[in-house]
């Protein structure tokens, strides 16, 4: 019996995590300390949300992972980032995209002068598997976002915000990622468009097994689709837990969902939150 157990394949738990951040610190311009020790993990094929108010450090966290920080004179000065079993904290975005980790930036950043189709094709820049495969994936993206197919020849700069967000997600998908870092997909979009985009996230996650780390201010929406959430404040994770738990947590409700019971701005509740926050960090 004991031999039988030994011959079992290695337990899956080791590869269960696709991304882990270990106590990272980020400094901008050599002086501005923005992340003060952030740790988080994303399970393989999971959807994890980072929540928090303006300036909490969500974008900085995502950029630290994708290493787009360097272009903004930011630097990871402490801690480690492991993606898919490999240290990636010194890797260029190009190498990271090759390994399957790509960011969709806040504010979409489509190439305004390129057509939608050209935008999607730039996403395949790092691929080496031939034009036929790229063509096939392009069709898949069009199937996912029929709206992009209609507008394939329009200059991206002239398309609507929702179409640009779809274009940015589609473009990222064209790199065949294992994981997408999605920064505020809801920014400036009408609720039904936001919902549409999160539905696509769910589909990509379920059908293609893409893991997502989503930074959002729209806590409500993010917690409906994510399985786990981290709440950040001034460069620290102040709370984390299953999405279900966060949705029902009184402090989260009050501060991020805006649905607290009773007197919202009561001093005591604020204090309890602060105590809790200190304890958690």
């Amino acid at each position, binding site marked *: 019996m004991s031999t039988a157990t030994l011959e079992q394949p290695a337990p899956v738990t080791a590869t269960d995590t696709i991304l882990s951040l270990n106590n990272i610190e980020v400094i901008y311009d050599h002086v501005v300390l923005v992340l003060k020790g952030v740790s988080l993990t994303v399970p393989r094929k999971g959807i994890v949300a980072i929540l928090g108010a303006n300036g909490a450090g969500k974008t900085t966290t995502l950029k630290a992972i994708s290493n787009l920080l360097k272009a903004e004179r930011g630097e990871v000065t402490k801690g480690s980032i492991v993606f898919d079993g490999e240290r990636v904290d010194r890797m260029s975005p190009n190498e990271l995209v090759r390994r399957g980790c790509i960011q969709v930036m806040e504010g*979409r950043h489509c190439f305004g*002068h390129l057509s939608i189709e050209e935008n999607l094709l730039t996403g395949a820049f790092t691929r080496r598997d031939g034009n036929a495969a790229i063509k096939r994936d392009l069709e898949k993206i069009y199937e996912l976002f029929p709206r992009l197919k209609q507008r394939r020849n329009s200059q991206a700069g002239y398309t609507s915000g929702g179409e640009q967000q779809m274009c940015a997600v589609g473009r990222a998908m064209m790199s065949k990622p294992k994981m997408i870092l999605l920064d505020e997909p809801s920014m400036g979009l009408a609720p039904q468009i936001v919902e549409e985009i999160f539905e696509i996230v769910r589909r990509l996650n379920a059908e293609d097994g893409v893991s997502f780390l989503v930074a959002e201010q729209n806590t409500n929406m993010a917690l409906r689709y994510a399985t786990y959430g981290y709440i950040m404040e001034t460069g620290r994770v102040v709370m984390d837990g299953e999405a279900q738990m966060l949705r029902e947590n009184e402090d989260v409700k009050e501060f991020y969902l805006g649905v607290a019971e009773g007197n919202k701005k009561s001093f005591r509740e604020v204090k309890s939150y602060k105590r809790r926050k200190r304890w958690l960090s």
Partner: protein
Amino acid sequence: MPISEWRTDDHRIQEPECKGEERMSDVAAQPAPSLLANGWIRTGLITAAVIAAIAIGARIDPSGTIHKVFVDPFQQMVEAPDLLAQTVWEGLVSGVLYALIALGFVLIFKASGVFNFAQGIMVVFAALTLVGLHEKGVPAFLAVILTLGVMFVLAATIERVVLRPLVNQPDIILFMATFGITYFLIGFGESVFGGNPKQMITSELYLPKGAIDAKILGGLVSFQKIDIAAAVIASLMIAALAVFFQYTRIGRALRAVADSHKAALSVGISLNQIWVIVWFTAGIVALITGIMWGARSDVSFALEIVALKALPVLILGGFTSIPGAIVGGLIIGIGEKLGEFYWGPLIGGGIESWLAYFIALGFLLFRPQGLFGDKIIERI
């Protein structure tokens, strides 16, 4: 309005937020929406006024300066159309070469955001390397290939030594760095190949010699074969570049980088690789320009003066527009030949060397973004 009509639009209403800083600066760059603020209308009005004043002036005093400057040259043009055609053709050919120099400049400016002062010197350096290698006994076509190799090494070196370390520095520092490149290339070129003027290896490269005399417009117009070749090769190269940019993976990536460095970085386009490619492309353009130019005069660093003509061309065409570089080059080339031929004698000649800057200066006053200044996308 029915609600349903609202709904289709409501995601657009919030759009302006999403473009962030880019949008803000676009707005700031827009002139106030007044009729006179529109560069074209204002230029048109001023031109009309000037022409009216001149016409009246020339009427009043048929033998005076105004007549000599503003009426007589045009009469000459009409009376001897063959001479006009000859002058325009010569202007066209030098214009094509100016356009090529400006084109290399625009490529680099768009893709790496660097105002490359060294572009003109790269033309001379490429030509000098080619001729110098041939002088040292390398067969002509091998010399071309070796020169391309040198231009590639130059591109890779500039990327590694200049661009990469300075990438997040202010633009002015990169601009200063290109001064460094300029003087390095001059010094290096002279020490390796010597400073004396050289002959371009025209016949070894099978470039045609001689002229075709055409009987048109009631006279003889002479077309140098090398000029025809220059025009044809330049057009082919521009067409090839257009195809490269439009339809290839790398070309698309180049345009993506020109559009937004940040976004290009985020999809995994390697800026370092793109910079090498773009500087190398500019190097190839420089070599071809250098061959054509060298065939019309000597190859020496005196060509630098010619290379500096790229600046007025760029002011005219806009720093970010490839069609602008081409049209600007042609306008400057033709403009200065016409100026030299018809107006030069009035002030004792020598107009050609400064007229281009003069035209550019006038242009700066009326249309600082150039003829084809970057098309700014703005959603309404």
